[in-house]
């Protein structure tokens, strides 16, 4: 029997699900391998009977947490889809300010008191709320990586993310290093798997796939200093997709 798959979204642009919807003719192969029972972007039907939950977005509110816990309970495998789900992504940038400050900045004098839709806490990645079995990171995700994960799961393999940095893919693409082009790049500390798409198009890596398990941050900072990157620029870039209070 084909495993049943359901897609869910929390705070996100839903662009990662759009990447899946954009698989085009491969989506026909995909539905041969799995039975998609819920996917709001492409179908009307919904079912709570699923084996694999693919969840996009970060967690903002107690009601999100409850919903996510419910999904976790139903699913045998929970996959975090995209940067927001994997690291909290851009959404986490707001954790720089207190919840009160954020509310005031965004909603001003509007009457939101007591409305559960606006009852936000700090932005969280999925794994700060529930156990996540697999991560498909990126902003947006890489479609080839997504199909690799699906095919490996179908083969009974445990899909693994690369443990090496973006530089490996960048060098294989024979790019001129963007540092040489006067830009700066988080490629040396960021997990590969995107085929170095940004540096290949002349843009420094923003670290959207999250950092390696043991990133060489000190060496990376030395390099950025050497190329004249200011501390402010450095911190902005390093926390863009990977914000944490204690900094880097």
């Amino acid at each position, binding site marked *: 029997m084909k495993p049943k798959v359901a897609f869910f979204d929390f705070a996100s642009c839903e662009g990662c699900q759009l990447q899946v919807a954009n698989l085009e003719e*491969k989506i026909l*192969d*995909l539905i*041969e*391998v799995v039975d998609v029972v819920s996917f709001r972007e492409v179908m009307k039907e919904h079912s709570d009977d699923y084996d694999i939950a693919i969840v996009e977005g970060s967690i903002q509110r107690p009601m999100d947490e409850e919903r996510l816990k419910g999904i976790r309970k139903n699913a045998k495998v929970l996959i975090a889809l995209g940067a927001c789900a994997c690291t909290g992504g851009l959404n986490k940038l707001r954790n720089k300010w207190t919840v009160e400050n954020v509310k005031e900045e965004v909603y001003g004098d509007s009457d939101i008191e007591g409305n559960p839709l606006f009852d936000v806490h700090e932005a969280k990645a999925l794994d700060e709320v529930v156990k996540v079995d697999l991560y498909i990171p990126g902003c947006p995700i890489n479609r080839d990586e997504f*199909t*690799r994960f*699906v*095919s*490996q799961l*179908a*083969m*009974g*393999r*445990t899909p693994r993310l690369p*443990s*090496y*940095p973006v*530089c*490996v893919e960048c*060098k*294989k693409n*024979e*790019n*001129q*290093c963007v*540092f040489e*082009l006067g830009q700066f790049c988080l*490629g*040396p*500390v960021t997990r590969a798997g995107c085929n170095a798409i940004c540096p290949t198009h002349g843009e420094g890596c923003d670290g959207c796939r999250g950092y390696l398990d*043991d990133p*060489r941050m*000190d*060496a*990376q900072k*030395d*390099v950025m200093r*050497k190329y004249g990157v200011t501390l402010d620029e450095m911190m902005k870039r390093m926390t863009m997709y990977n914000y944490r209070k204690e900094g880097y």
Partner: protein
Amino acid sequence: MDGIKGLLKMKTLTRDKWQEFVNELIAGDEREVVGVKAKGNRFHFGPLEDASELRLDYDVTILPPKKELLPQHEELLSFDISRSFEVRAVKDDNRKILIGVHPYDLRAINMMDQIYLGEHIDEHYRTRRENTLIIASDILNVPERAFCASMGTHLVDEGFDLLVTDLGDRVVITEGTDEGRGLLKDHADAEEATAEDVEAVRRLREGLPSKYSREVLVDQKEWPSLLEDNYDHPVWGEQARKCLTCGTCTLVCPTCVCYDVDDEVELDMKSGSRKRTWDGCLLKEFTLVAGGEIFRESPLERYRHRYYRKGVYLPKRFGFVACVGCGRCAAQCLPDIADPSEIINSIHSFSMERRKELPVPKVEIKGIKEDLLVPKSATIVAKKRMTDIEVLYQIELDSGEELDHKPGQFVEVSIFGVGEAPISISSSPGGRRFELLVRNVGDVTSKMEELCVGDKIGIRGPFGNGFDMEELSGSNMLFIGGGCGLAPLRSLILTTLENRSDFRDVTILYGCKDPEAILFDDDLSDWKERKDVEFLQTVDTCPEGQCWEGNTGVITTLIPKVDLDPRDVIAVIVGPPVMYRFVINDLKKRGVPDENIIVSLERRMKCGVGKCGHCQINGVYVCLEGPVFRYSDVKDLPEAF
């Protein structure tokens, strides 16, 4: 350079005629023409569409031309997993001409040839290599970080089909091979080079060394001994602290040729392929084995390994220092710590003189005739569960041949779509059936558990250096097995017992974690009963709910119980990495000399034929010189235990 043989066979083309020649090659449909072109404000090798794109004035390309012979990504096999065993080798037999290869890169290609076309021939590489003609080019401009002149790689006199020297209005061509000569004859109307042209070429070559601003102060013949004197030099730690471990230095290096292999399956769950991709020893998981152990984990060890591979291990194995001074690593390393000339010079200026021999044991390697990377079809003929995580399989090759293995050797088991895993052979040689004990620790081994009798798997091998039965015969034998280390050891024990009269005393010590982890029950009871075998067994602990009446304690608790003449015994140890140190220590305390201890080591044996680089322990390939080693041969290798 009067030594350049080609001086005698030089031809000249005017610039226009040279362009016409290149354009005719491009227009012809016999071969794809790949040449040096601009890429941003750097250069790269790419398909030429017009001769005007060719930039013989380049300094160095971002990636070396190795990518044309061993591409970044390459399909090795294609298969259909919906059928029981359908696999074929994919060979890229695209005929190519490479134009503009600089002398240092040509040297590097010669080195690759020795690695890939040595005792074990890599057919995928060979196919590409034989289909590639090389039009080399004399160096006109020198990149800032290169130090070719001090490596003697700024000039070549062989290895090319044609060698061009761009003199501006004229291009002088040195003929290297008959094929090159034919190419020129068929597509250009070249004149004999005049004395003036020959003189201009000579001057250009002679003036080249002075263009290099960097040099290595140590002759490359001295690199191995300088490095062996400085294994613990502070420079490794100082530099490694700055290292991003991003792998750039290895990826852009013309002599770094290690690779990884993985299977991919299309979403149709039918067609798939086995792909090879570049890998590098600076990357953390390069030495990761299925059990989770990483054998060269720290950035320092990885950083140092690259220099030792180039400066000690490959020179000892092949006779060449695997650095051609192109400077790509130096120029592309962001923290700027990858420059071999700087490292060698700095060690030279402050040598520790603390010798650490890093020998490469000489083992007779029987070249494999068939296509190395193509698994043979085999069938599971019996399957027996041994423990929760271990299953014993009996396998037969579908060709009807015997595996023809030695005790201690291993095979690579393929499950198409999942990958390959090295598994040691548990049965004694002879007969069509062989046995593999498989522990479920990774994707391949867990998939294998799902397979049933009658299912097909792929087998490559046998690989590696097994136990030398002739040498062991006549000895008192002490076998010490820990955990699933009994699997390879069993092959040797069974062979010994089948030829019992060739040996004197036989003692077997076997230890495992707990009673439920005990393997090969039937064999153990046989050994227990035999009068001509002393058999002692232990478990580390006996958890509640399990039943055990024998010795409890780690394997070393058995050693004092054995009555042995330490000078007259061969001790064979196979077990998990942590066991070796303790067991060897106790044996040495008993007075067993190092030469009488034999071990079998586990590493990430991926290719099985000494090319992919993953199983390397200092200069030793476990898949070639091992997994069976005499302890005295490897005990001084810092990475061994």
